[in-house]
């Protein structure tokens, strides 16, 4: 990105994203959409395009399109049209795809993205409903192709952005935000390995300051954020190299090869197909009454952008923390549940900050820094966290009331995670207390006890005391370390600091 700018070029990117909608049955038939069934076991007579079959629109797919439209503040067209996109392909059973062409169900709208410290609002062109094709399987058939039509007719929402993205980093941030959003509002499972969320990137470059757009290439079927980034990076460099060598970019569709980390031409504009779009006479125009939109609106969750702002203004979170906590619906809901559990507890004492703010920040830190780490290490998704929100609140309560130092809190969390492999422990709401008791992990906050330990440390470390007095500040830390070591890390660090300072000053 920065290299292209340094070379005097600006990158222009627009994304077309296909999100598979989470309906149980297909968009025009009753067949299941579940992934991974044996080939052709989830293809109904409609999906097979047998003679005489007709499509009937799945309302669930429309409802999900409405949810998306509401989430991005778009116009939801009261009347949209399904069209046929005609082309021959063996895994496209009707040899036309039912899609929306001239009038899509969702028009306009915006998505807020964040790259580093910069925020950006990306405008969407449209989002339309369409059906997926099947799959051609070219291996294992000895010179022939196999066709699996399980995926044929799976509902897709094609989400098209304006060409407003200016770097691969922005494209990835946009794709990630969109990915989180469709999962957040429950319209797509976002499983990229299974192809539930995949992007096509339109990439062009132009001289900085040039008002005219360069010739673009479309890179198809990028099914990971990493591939999206790599493919765009490769493509930018390829186009700039080409232009700087006096060549020109040919408008074409390209494929990204992750093994070689390069894009390759698939088909050029010259042999681009004429899809002969026309309104599908088997389907009536899709009419969406305002009442239906209101009905869907009533079931919408608080959206990530709104929640993020709320965390910033009400809970005084740093933007990056608010961003992190709202990056996925699971993490965010987990955090919200922990807050609710904390509110229910009556055994928490607070300092100067308002209870909500103090609770929230500590909870947020523990989740973002420590819980996430444990989850990543074990590849556990949030929805299956071994430490439940109730247990997490129980742990935080012991941190707030001084029973645990922050270090001990992390220690207890790790132990909770470890023992929660047993289902019995997983459901115990007082797991934190149990483990503190069992492990003797209570923080030592008794001033007399700490004083006694510090006296012993000072007596045993005369050298460090001398060094400190000679002006070596580092020696102080060594003494604190010794004191903590002597208490197996359980001494209240603030008290150790305070008492040690007093002793050294008076000694």
């Amino acid at each position, binding site marked *: 990105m920065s290299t292209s700018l340094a070379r005097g070029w600006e990158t222009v990117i627009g994304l077309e994203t296909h999100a598979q909608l989470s309906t149980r049955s297909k968009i025009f038939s009753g067949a299941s959409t579940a992934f991974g069934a044996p080939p052709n076991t989830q293809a109904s*007579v409609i999906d097979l395009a047998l003679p005489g079959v007709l499509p009937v*629109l799945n309302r669930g797919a429309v409802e999900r399109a409405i949810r998306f439209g509401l989430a991005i503040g778009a116009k939801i067209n009261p009347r949209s049209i399904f069209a046929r996109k005609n082309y021959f392909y*063996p895994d496209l*059973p009707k*040899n036309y795809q039912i899609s929306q062409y001239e009038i899509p169900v969702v028009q306009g709208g915006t998505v807020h993205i964040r790259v580093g410290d910069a925020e950006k609002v990306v405008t969407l062109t449209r989002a339309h409903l369409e059906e997926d094709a099947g799959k051609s399987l070219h291996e294992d058939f000895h010179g022939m192709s196999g066709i699996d039509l399980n995926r044929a007719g799976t509902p897709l929402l094609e989400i098209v952005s304006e060409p407003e993205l200016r770097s691969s980093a922005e494209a990835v941030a946009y794709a990630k935000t969109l990915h989180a959003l469709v999962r957040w509002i429950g319209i797509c499972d976002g499983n990229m390995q299974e192809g539930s969320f995949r992007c096509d990137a339109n990439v062009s470059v132009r001289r900085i300051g040039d008002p005219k757009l360069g010739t673009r290439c479309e890179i198809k079927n990028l099914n990971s954020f990493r591939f999206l980034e790599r493919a765009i990076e490769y493509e930018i460099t390829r186009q700039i190299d080409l232009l700087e060598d006096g060549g020109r970019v040919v408008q074409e569709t390209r494929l990204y090869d992750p093994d070689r980390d390069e894009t390759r031409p698939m088909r050029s504009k010259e042999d681009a197909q*004429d899809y002969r779009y*026309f309104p599908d006479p088997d389907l009536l125009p899709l009419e969406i009454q305002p009442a239906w939109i209101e009905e869907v609106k009533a079931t919408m969750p608080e959206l990530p952008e709104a929640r993020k702002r709320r965390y910033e203004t009400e809970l005084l979170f740093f933007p990056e923390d608010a961003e992190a906590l709202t990056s996925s619906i699971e993490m965010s809901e987990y955090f919200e549940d922990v807050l609710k559990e904390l509110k229910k507890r009556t055994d928490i004492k607070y300092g100067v900050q308002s209870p909500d703010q103090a609770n929230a920040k500590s909870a947020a830190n523990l989740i973002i820094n420590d819980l996430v780490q444990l989850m990543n290490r074990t590849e556990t998704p949030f929805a299956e966290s071994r430490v439940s929100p109730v247990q997490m609140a129980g742990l935080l309560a012991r941190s707030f009331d001084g029973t645990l130092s922050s270090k001990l809190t992390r220690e207890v969390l790790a132990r909770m995670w470890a023992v929660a492999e047993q289902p019995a422990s997983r459901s115990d709401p007082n797991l934190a207390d149990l483990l503190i008791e069992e492990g003797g992990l209570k923080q030592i906050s008794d001033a007399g006890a700490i004083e006694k330990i510090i006296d012993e440390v000072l007596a045993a470390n005369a050298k460090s005391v001398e060094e400190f007095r000679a002006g070596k500040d580092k020696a102080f830390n060594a003494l604190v370390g010794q004191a903590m070591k002597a208490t197996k890390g359980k001494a209240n660090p603030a008290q150790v600091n305070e008492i040690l300072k007093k002793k050294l000053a008076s000694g």
Partner: protein
Amino acid sequence: MSRHTASLAELSRQLRAKQVSAVELAQAYLARIEAHRDLNAFLDVRPEVTLAQARTADARIAAGDATPLTGIPIAHKDIFVTKDFTSTASSRMLEGYMSPFDATVVQNLGNAGMVTLGKLNCDEFAMGSSNENSAYGNVLNPWDKGAVPGGSSGGSSAVVAARIAPVATATDTGGSIREPAAFTGVTGTKPTYGRPSRWGMIAFASSLDTAGLMTNSAEDAALVLGPMVGFDPKDSTSVDRPGEDFSRDLGKPVKGLRIGVPKEFFGAGLQPDVEAAVRTALEEYRRLGATLVDISLPSAELGIPVYYVVAPAECSSNLSRFDGVRYGHRAKSYGDLNDMIAKSRAEGLGAEPKRRILIGTYVLSHGYYDAYYIQAQKVRRLIADEFRRAFEQCDLIAGPVTTSVAFGFGEKAADPVAMYMSDLYTIPGSLAGIPSMSIPCGFGAKGRPVGLQLMANYFEEAKMLGAAHQYQLATDWHARIPEGFR
């Protein structure tokens, strides 16, 4: 008495009075089918299937679980898919194809207890006006074996005219029920578009395709139409309306009925023999007390160009699924996948579907779409509006079905445009989607039958059938049976 000349109501009475069993009736018709195989009207006959259905019908009658149609035989146009008979649409492409399900129309009539005699020849994918486009050979006109039986529902019209089936299903996209009905002297009824389900009808032009009936009288049609149609959640263009008794106006005199006569239907192309028979029929209506009203449908003459944009456009897309990949004909030798699809289609599809696919592909192509398809849709709306306004002045519209009586084999085969003109008077009603029918009203040149077309406003089938029945009470054209089939 000869059962093959009895009305459906009479057959129904005899069945329930156990004067005849469904099995006996089926056997009698199967024998007539066998005796008249030279008509080439049937593509698939399976006596064991027919007789099994007849036995079930007899059991229902015995159990007192019969409907008025239980035990009455029917034959289905090969455009309707069926589980128990092949479904080929008269195309090489679907030779031997067995559907895993029945068309809704077939299922509805089966649920009523009707017994299927077999599947009927037609023009390939219902494209044609003479039945000469079938991959399985011509159907002969029972009135004159040198004449075409009309198309595309030529098998349906021929078997009903020849009384080798008491009733047959048919489909009408631009005249495919009414034109063959006129050519063979039977009653052909096309209901309002959206009234019968299209589920299981092999699609030609989805926005026009309408299932209907060939019968020997309007009374018979009224009896079968009710159970045949009705809302079908499997067809998004199916109309959700409560069930109707289509016989309710049969006894209603036509006195005071205003019959609109469009002047555009009596223009230069109309042959004098047809005009004479039609004018006589209109005169008969006046004698019965109806008022004839001169009306105008100025855009009706644009029907043919509009139709030959819209129908081929839809057909070019609908027929894309026949690619040899999943079912149907696949070429024996080919190179890559594209070659396999291209060769399979080249071999499997006949000349007329290919011609229409080419036209349709052309009119939908980039740069032509607006000039052809969009423009045609606009004129189509104009035609529908003209009908709507006409029905403010009259209750029904009447006129000729065709410009001439049935022509001879090969007469128009080399000239597609002349062939397309056969549907001049039927296409406007198809484009509007209104109910219309053809009833026999005399004979023209070479003793070949002439049809009178009746058209009604949307969902006014009962009124149309009532007026047709009143005419058939006063005349006996519909009761005439061709020589050799009496």
